[in-house]
Every structure is written in structure tokens, then in C-alpha cells.
């Protein structure tokens, strides 16, 4: 069993279509903890000891957020800057997070094709996520492939529901430790492990 912590960041949740559904589908389980950063810290006043205490209690940490300007909303950066202290998360004696897993769960307006060398975003999503990956590396944390929903502006209600189910299943699988190392290494997105029709996933 693995305990999952979802660090959710959406500055205007009431306007969101996809994340509202995703959040609704987060399994109601004591093993999955949903933590809404903008709701908890509207003034960016992050309670560092509390956040560190939460991290210690969980094994998989998921940053769930829309993809803004090739990165996360501002509060995630604030959170990273403040919570992952030197001497605690990294550096001398900083082993608090060793062995845990980090992951991004992202929604983006751009299609899967747009995040290729020939697309208008030129680079792959994984490239853009390198800062997260490297952060994880420095903290001796395993960085999982991201869960990504592309083309959010074009998705129909049914498409979004399917994505929400996909997210739910992935969370259940992560929580139950049902995803093997080779499976993780074989996929680009975590979505690949819980397939839904290709027409939607693009």
C-alpha cells in the first residue's frame, strides 16, 4: 500500500471544467489525501512545518495543476521553494523524502502533437517538466511520468468523464502499489497504463 498526497493548485477552480471532474473522481479513501493549496493558502502564506509533516506521511506526491506557460501555477513554485528546505529535503542531512515518488498531473490546451519537434510548442511535455524531474532527483525522489490531459478546450463532456475515470483508476492503482517498475519505465505518460480511446487521448 502506498499513501498518495495530491497537491492541487488551481487559482480559479470555479472556472475549471476538467479539474473539477478530476477532483470529483479522486477516490474517497484514507490512503489518498487531497490538499488544495490555493484554498488553504490564499495569501501564499505556506505553513512549512505542516507541509513537511504531510510529506513525511505520504509515499506518492502528485502535483495536480493546469499547465500555465510551460510550468505550474505560482503557488507550486512557492511551495517548492519554501517546503523543500536545504538540510531537510536535500543537501547535507537532507534525506527526509528519500524513496518517495513525485508526479505531475497536468491539463493543457495544446494537443499531444503540438508538444513535438514539429508542433508549435516545439518540445515535449517531459522536457518542460525537467525542473520537476531534477528537483525530485536532488531530493532522492523517484520521478514518475506525468498524467496529462491534452486539448482541454476541445474535450466534450463525455471525453472529460473518461479522463476523470482514467485518473481515478490510475490513483487507485498507485495507491494499491499495482504499477510495476518496468511498466513505469515503458510509458511516456501515466495515462498509457490506463488506456482510453486514442481519439480522446491526443
Amino acid at each position, binding site marked *: 500500500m502506498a499513501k498518495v498526497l495530491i497537491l492541487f493548485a488551481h487559482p480559479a477552480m470555479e472556472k475549471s471544467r476538467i479539474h473539477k471532474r478530476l477532483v470529483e473522481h479522486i477516490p474517497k479513501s484514507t490512503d489518498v489525501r487531497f490538499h488544495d493549496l490555493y484554498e488553504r493558502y490564499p495569501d501564499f502564506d505556506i*505553513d*512549512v512545518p505542516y507541509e513537511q509533516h504531510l510529506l513525511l506521511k505520504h509515499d506518492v506526491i502528485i502535483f495536480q495543476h493546469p499547465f500555465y506557460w510551460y510550468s505550474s501555477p505560482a503557488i507550486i513554485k512557492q511551495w517548492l*521553494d519554501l517546503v523543500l528546505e*536545504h*538540510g531537510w529535503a536535500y*543537501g*547535507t542531512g537532507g534525506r527526509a523524502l528519500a524513496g518517495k515518488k513525485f508526479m505531475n498531473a497536468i491539463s493543457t490546451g495544446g494537443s499531444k502533437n503540438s508538444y513535438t519537434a514539429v508542433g508549435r510548442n516545439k518540445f515535449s511535455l517531459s522536457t518542460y517538466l525537467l525542473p520537476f524531474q531534477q528537483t525530485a532527483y536532488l531530493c532522492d525522489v523517484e520521478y514518475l511520468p506525468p498524467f496529462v490531459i491534452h486539448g482541454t478546450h476541445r474535450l466534450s463532456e463525455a471525453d472529460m468523464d473518461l479522463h476523470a475515470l482514467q485518473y481515478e483508476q490510475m490513483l487507485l492503482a498507485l495507491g494499491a502499489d499495482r504499477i510495476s517498475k518496468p511498466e513505469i519505465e515503458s510509458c511516456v505518460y501515466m495515462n498509457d497504463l490506463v488506456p482510453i480511446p486514442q481519439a480522446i487521448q491526443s
Partner: protein
Amino acid sequence: MDNNAFLFQAMVYLAASVIMVPLAKRLALGSVLGYLLAGILIGPAVLKFIGGEGESLMHSAEFGVVMMLFLIGLELEPAVLWRLRKAILGMGGLQVLITSVIISGIAFYAGLPWQSSLAIGMALALSSTALVLQTLAEKGIDKTTAGRSAFAVLLFQDIAVIPMLAFFPLLAITGLANPEAASHSAGGWIESQSAWMRTLIITGAVALIIVGGRYLVPPIFRLVASTQLREMFTATALLLVVGIAVLMSSVGLSPALGTFLSGVVLANSEYKHELESDIEPFKGLLLGLFFIAVGASINFELILEHPLLIFGLVLALMFVKAVVLLIIGKAFELRIDQNIIFSSSLSQVGEFAFVLLSFSLTEGIVARSNVEILMAVVAISMSLTPIAFFLNEKIVLPFVDKRLSNNVKEQREADTVEEKNPVIIAGFGHFGNIIGRFLRAHGIKATILDIDSNRVDFLRKMGFKVYYGDASRYDILLAAGAAEAKMVIIAMDDAEKRLQMIETIKKHFPDLQMLVRSSTREDTYDQMNAGILHIYRETIDTSLRMGVDALKILGHRAYSAQRAARTFFRYDEQKLKDLSKVRNNEKEYINQAREYIEELEAIIQADNQALHLRKDLGWDEDSLIADEKVKKDE
């Protein structure tokens, strides 16, 4: 009077006031009544420390009234006057006019000469500024509509005294003249001047006050202030007032008029507040002495001789004054409860009646026997005022409240169907109105309850759904829709009422969320004990915001200062919770003040921890630099 006798007299007056005034205050009767009682106590009626000199004492103590007018003049900035113009001229003017006419009419009908009747009417139309303003402030209702209206009327009366004093000599009846007193009050030499010369001198004196006040006094004060001797400033201020009084008396005008005038002239000067604080204690003491003299000069034999006449007069007089005020209040659209406070608070006769009556005695307008009876009437009516306030509060107003809230209920039943608001705001003063406006800006409808009926009327006109009523009462809350609402915002001023309201809601509407304003830490503890989760201390955010700006001005970065304030806020809230637990265990505190000091001590001691409040280590390079050093050494 030899020196020892003087000191003894001074001791008697001071001792009597020191004993009686705090006693009267403790009994919620107000300081004026305390002075009056002190006067009665040391006067001929009881201890006989002072005998016949009561009246001459009154003359010298009248100087307190002169000083009071100077201070009132200082307060009269044109802008303030302009804002209150309708109330002052309308309510005040009508009150003085109608009441004097009625009282004069009654006096004339009772067979007094018309001059005496007129003088009595004017004297008795006035109410007691000192007594009423103090009592309203003590009861905390000076800022309500009733309080402001009362102030406006009193202001008009205080100003009206001046033309009255000027007018009285014209009413003199030669047969009644009191020669020695008359020569004492009006300067002798001026009588010997011809009429046009007299007019010239008087005009010159007034001009001197206005021009001198504007161009001469400020440079003199500047000069005195530059000596850095505080007592010199006080002496100069006193000299100014005394000098004007002397000038005025010597040209045969009222000293009160002169000082009032110079007060107005100086109202906009930079020395206004300095003057105020210098003159204030003298005014207070002299007014106190004046009230003592009044008490001492009440002729108890006279009262015992004609008890029915005197008490009958008192009651009739207060009744007439109150009815006139009630009608004026109605005409100026005061709500019934505010109107009752307004009219009953001003129904006594004031200190200026003593001045006017004794003046009319010396001027020979009213016969001595009548003046004595009226003096007793005035003193008794003043003594009854605190009692009138008390009765009002305990009997009349609760009754009126009940009737008003019944009306509320009826109206409520009429419009229950059309809307049910999710939010109830109790109290729409300076605290509640910000929340109300904020919610309204976001299209959230709130039902507002307020205790000030005029504010209620105004807000209704502005389209708010407002009810008049005591929000701590079950029936009012029910009428306001507490059974269907999601939350109630308790934003009233009165801490006691807030607690009552919390209890009512806990009992009858347990599902209603409460967001409560709190004023002091005391309040906060009480509310915590009552189980309130959402407590908002009214000053903490503002003072911390001020602290942030202070840090910024001292050169700290804005964001660091703001984060420091947030950290401190969280720390302080936590501390409050901790201390509240401790507090419940030790109930044995000696008194409130002591408790507060102990509390503060505990907080400040705990603050030493605040010095070690967690810094934002994630943005700190110290440990990284230390790390690098270690690596290098290896």
C-alpha cells in the same frame, strides 16, 4: 477672609466633591448630580459649612460657565456647524422658541408681569449641556440619532444664551431693581457715557476681540510657546479668557458672549487643542464649584413651605418641555424610540437657567421670591434627569422595542415568501457596513438587523433589506429568517449583546454558522468559551498592517514584512488559544484591570518566543553556504 479660613473653605469644597462625585458616578447618576449633592451636603440645609455666601460663590463660579462657552466656541468650526445646520437651526430654534413661548404664556397667565414671564420662559427653555452630554456619553448613546439631535439642540441653546443675556437688561422693571448687584454686574463708568459713545465703545470691544483674536493672539501664543514653559502657556490661556471677561464686563457686555466670540475666532488656529486642554480642567473645576454653589443655595425651607407648588412646577415643566421636544422630534422624522430618548434627555432645565435667573434678579426683572422658587425647581429638575434616563432605559424603551418588533414581525410575514437571504448581518455600523457592502458587491443578499432606527430607515431607502431590532432576541432573529439562513455575521458594537446573541442562536438555531466580531481579548475568550470558531478581532489586522508599513518605512522589503506579519498573526492566534485554556483554570482574578495587566505580561513574555518565529528557511542561503564550506574543507 484670612488665609486659614480660605484654605479651610477650599478643603470643604474639594472634600465634598471628592466624596460625592465618585459616589454619584458609581450609582450611575452622573457627576453633575454629585456636585449638586455635595453642595446640598455642605450647605445650610445639612452641615452648614457654607451659609449665605452660597450666592456670592455662585457669582464667582459662574466664571466656569464663561470658560465653558469659550470651549464651545473653540469647538465650533464652520464645517461642523454647516453639517449640523438643519438640526441646530431647525430643531434647536424651534425648541427654544416654542418652549419659551409656552412657558412665558403660562407664567403670564399665572399673573406675573410680561417682562418676568418672558425672562422665565427663556431661562427655563434651556436644557443642561453639561448634564446631558455627559450622561449621553456615559450611556454610550451620544453617537445615535437621538444623541446627535440632542447635541444640536444644546448647541443652539448655548448660543442662544448670549443674545438672551444681551436682551435681558431691556426687560428690567425699575421697581424691582437691585441697586448694588446691578452696579456690580455692569461697569459703572460706562453708564456715565453718552449713548453714541457707549455704542462706539461696545462695537470697538467686539472688534478688538475679533481682530485681536485673529491677528494678535496667535503670535503671542507662538512667542509664549517658544519659551517651552508649559505653565506659561496655561497662564496665557487663562489671561486671555479672564482679560476678555474683564473687557466685556467693563463695557457692560456679557463676558460669556466675549469669550464665546474669541473661542470661535480661535477655532481654526493651530493652538486650538492646546487651549482646550489648558482651559478644560479650570472649566471642569469651576463648573463643579458652580454646581456645588447651586446645591448649597437650594432653599430647603422654601421647598418645605411649598412642596406641592415646587414639585408640581417641576413635573409640569418637564412635561411641557418633553412634549414640545417629542413633537419636534416627530416633525424631524426621528423614530419613536430615538425620539423618546431625545425628548426625555432634554426635559430638564439647565445650568444656564441659574445664570439667567440670577442675572434677571440683579437686573431686577424677576422678583426674588420667584427666583428662589424657580432656582429650586431648576435644581430638582436636573436631579431628576438621571432618574428619567433610568426609567427610560428600564421601562419605556423595552416597551417601545416590543411594539416595534411586533411591527417587524408583521412586515416579515408579509414578505417571507419573496426572498430568503442566506446571510444575516447583525449591526450595520462602521464594522458591519463594510462586510455588508462587500457581500453586496458580490451579489450576496443579506438581511440586516440594526438597533438604530434612523439608520434602518435610511438603509431601507437605499434598497437594503433591513429590520430594526435587538438582534439578540429570538423573535427578531426568527423574523429575520434565522431558521433558513446559512450564516449570521455578528457585528454589533456591544460585546454583551453579542454574547447574548450567541447564546440565543446556540439555543434556537444550532445550524446557523456564526461569524463574530470581537473587540478585546476578554471578548475573544468569552466567545471561545461559548464555542465560537470564527472570531474576528477588530484591531489585529489593522494594527499588523500598520506594523507592516512601519517595517517598510524602516527599510524592510515589502514582501518580507508582509510575511512576517502573517507569521505573527498565526502565532498570536495560537497564543490566544493557549492563554484561553490557562485562563479557564485560574478563575481567581482580583479585578479587570489587574487581569488585563497579568494577561499582557503573559503575552509579552510569550513574545520572546516570537523573536524566534520561524523564518522562511527555504529562501535562506546560510545552510547552503555552510555546506559549501564543509565541502571545500574536505
